[in-house]
């Protein structure tokens, strides 16, 4: 009966095709994920992967990998990546470029900002259903906390807490003010 199970398992899934994107923000970029839900053999391997594209200066929200390590391979462009440990110390703060690999350990906080030519990467994750916990944006931990907890924890006013929670409506691909400014000036120049 092996041919009914292992022998016929699907082994391939394309995550490079932009039209297959799972997350897409026209101004910031896109992300596609392959995990044991859309490629079941990954359940046996306990691995998954993510393919991402960030447009110029766009930001992949600060987040931590809840249940996996993430090994990032840079496909194209450059990005500034910061990784922070449990003591709030910068573990890595530098630019990564095409052909380089960076490992982000489980639970360590990380943020990516694309350089001027954009940034493309593939991340290998050591869990077949890897998930992240965003720190900013619509599905973030900050948004899920009560205002009163934020106000007391950060010693800020309720208004500031509200802005902290709601000033970003995107899920995790964020535009930056610098890229918005550059786009506007380019549009003006073209006009």
């Amino acid at each position, binding site marked *: 009966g092996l041919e009914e199970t292992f022998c016929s398992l699907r082994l391939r899934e394309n995550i490079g095709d932009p039209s297959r994107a799972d997350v897409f923000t026209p101004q910031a970029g896109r992300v596609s994920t392959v995990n044991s839900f859309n490629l079941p053999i990954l359940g046996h391997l306990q691995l998954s992967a993510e393919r991402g594209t960030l447009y110029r200066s766009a930001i992949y929200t600060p987040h931590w990998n*809840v249940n996996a390590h993430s090994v990032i391979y840079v496909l194209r462009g450059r990005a500034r990546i*910061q990784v922070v440990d449990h003591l709030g110390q910068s573990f890595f703060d530098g630019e990564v470029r095409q052909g380089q690999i960076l490992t982000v350990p489980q*639970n360590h*906080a990380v943020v990516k*900002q694309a350089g001027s030519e954009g940034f493309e990467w593939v991340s290998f994750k050591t869990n077949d259903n890897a998930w992240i916990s965003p720190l900013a944006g619509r599905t973030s931990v900050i948004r899920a906390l009560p205002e009163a907890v934020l106000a007391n*924890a950060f010693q*800020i006013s309720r208004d500031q807490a509200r802005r902290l929670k709601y000033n970003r409506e995107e899920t995790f691909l964020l535009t930056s003010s610098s890229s918005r400014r550059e786009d506007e000036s380019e549009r003006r120049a073209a006009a």
Partner: protein
Amino acid sequence: RSQESFRQRNECQFDRLQALEPDNRIQAEAGVIESWNPNHDQFQCAGVAVTRSTIEPNGLHLPSYTNTPQLIYIVKGRAITGTIFPGCPETFEESQREQGQGRSQGSRKDRHQRLHHLREGDILAIPAGVAYWCYNNGDQQLVSVSLLDTSNFNNQLDDNPRRFYLAGNPEDEFEQLRREGGRGREREGRQAWRGGQGSSEDYNNIFRGFNSRLLEEAFNVDQETVRRLQGQSDNRNSIIRVKGRLDLVSPLRSRQEGQREGRWEEEREREREEEQRRMRRGGGYDAN
């Protein structure tokens, strides 16, 4: 895997067991966190670490997550706690009706993820990497014991328990033991809570490690808010005293629990009054 299990079997080969007192004590503004040295043979054998926290009334244990799953037992007192599951909706919310006509951000009402009421005897399970916070809303100390399962398959880091704080500049309760080889000792809190001694540079929340300009962009907020987010000049440590009371969107506790403490009628009355107040404010409910 076989090497790993051999190593673990070896770590369980010790001559005798001991009853252990906590080795480390961190004093915060509104409470204390004590921890047992996770490097002790017994804990190494079991693949666990243990802490005990005492939170004063109106104290808030700042949001944090750990690299291990946790089981927390409430020894004494009562509390409200929130666990943050990434991607889940904020299901505790003030209704749109109460907002009146205002739809601007200034008048936006609060919404957040589900809260849980805890009382003596409760066990709370927190998955690895899931953030949680805890507020003592009772009138006595809240004492809880937490077991961190470092050998759990959900922890892909090493065997060291780690706590990642999302606010303040709190100490990781195990870090000092790791650095100093785990000698038992009692310490006072850092800076204001430690008589101005010691360095605050080693302990920060995770926002502190990010570039502040990048955080301004990511959250779309001003410099001052980011400074606060990073906990700069915050010396309250991990358990802080809440100003006033914590104003949360939360249902009253269950009838059974209220009755047990003889407070059901009082709460029902409060609920009725609140309902009447809402009716007066909103002009009553509309019929279909």
